[in-house]
């Protein structure tokens, strides 16, 4: 049996991310693959020199969203164990702000789930970063969030929005795997579903 969802390691930390801790968490005798993704602070953005990134979060909600994303990943792929960590505060150039690790019997499941999880972080987990340059600073905005938001607000009535959310959620469960494999713009749809999934506030499929 794969480890239960309750064993997913989901953390929001203020200190440097200890990669080893999360990779070891997903290590499993029945796993033939461990995929990890690390998001790191890049030293430039559109030619401007970046000094550091400063992160903040709506922590309790971010943890809820991360748990929901891990549950969605488990529903879509055959996974053994999952770990996600996001760092808050100042993250200097070169250091990791986010880490996703997934283990599976086979590499395709681990790799695709890893990709899905980082996309979900980008689209629906309430975390913000301010990019600090040598000559100024700016709050960043993830394109994945904008896509997801547009798909929730273009519907005119709440009933229509709820229906759209339910529709998207179904297509997420069945189609996310294919969409992520394609790696095209459609992948944002699954992110949209992640955002909408919480809209009704009583989603029996999510262990909130």
């Amino acid at each position, binding site marked *: 049996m794969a480890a239960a969802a309750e064993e997913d390691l989901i953390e929001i930390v203020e200190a440097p991310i200890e990669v080893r801790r999360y990779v070891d968490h997903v290590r499993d005798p029945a796993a033939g693959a461990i995929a990890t993704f690390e998001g790191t602070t890049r030293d430039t953005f559109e030619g401007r020199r970046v000094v550091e990134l400063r992160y903040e979060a*709506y922590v309790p909600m971010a943890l809820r969203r991360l748990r929901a994303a891990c549950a969605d990943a488990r529903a879509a792929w055959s996974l053994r164990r999952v770990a996600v960590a996001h760092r808050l505060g100042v993250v200097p150039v070169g250091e990791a702000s986010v880490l996703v690790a997934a283990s599976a019997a086979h590499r395709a499941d681990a790799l695709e789930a890893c990709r899905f999880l980082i996309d979900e972080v980008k689209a629906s987990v309430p975390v913000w970063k301010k990019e600090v340059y040598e000559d100024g600073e700016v*709050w*960043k*905005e993830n394109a994945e969030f904008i896509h997801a938001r547009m798909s929730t607000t273009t519907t005119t009535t709440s009933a229509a929005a709820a229906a759209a959310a339910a529709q998207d959620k179904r297509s997420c469960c069945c189609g996310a795997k294919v969409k992520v494999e394609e790696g095209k713009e459609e992948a944002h749809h699954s992110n949209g579903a992640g*955002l*909408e999934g*919480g809209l009704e*506030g009583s989603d029996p499929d999510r262990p909130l």
Partner: protein
Amino acid sequence: MATEQPKDTSSVHGTSELIEILKENDKSKVHINSSIEIKALFFARARDLTGLSKTSIEMPEGSTAGDCMSKLLTKFPNLEEISNSMILALSEKYALESTVLKNTDELAIIPPISGG
């Protein structure tokens, strides 16, 4: 003692005053029941624009998340800057503007997120 006299007098007067106070309390109770208190949270750009990380806001019973947002926009006109790009969360879950609020609900203003 001089202190005894006024004390006795006030207790006589006090009964009718007390009744008046109780009546007033009942009135204010009705008032309290018809309004609810919402805790609004501001993150990132929203916090910069309001200068606050949270505030308490009184709303009529039956108000929606959207109604509360409108009131916040009146109170903090600067929030207009993100009114078309933000989304609301109610008690830690993304919420539609049509969601009806309950007393002590936590309404978070979520500017475009940028985690990862």
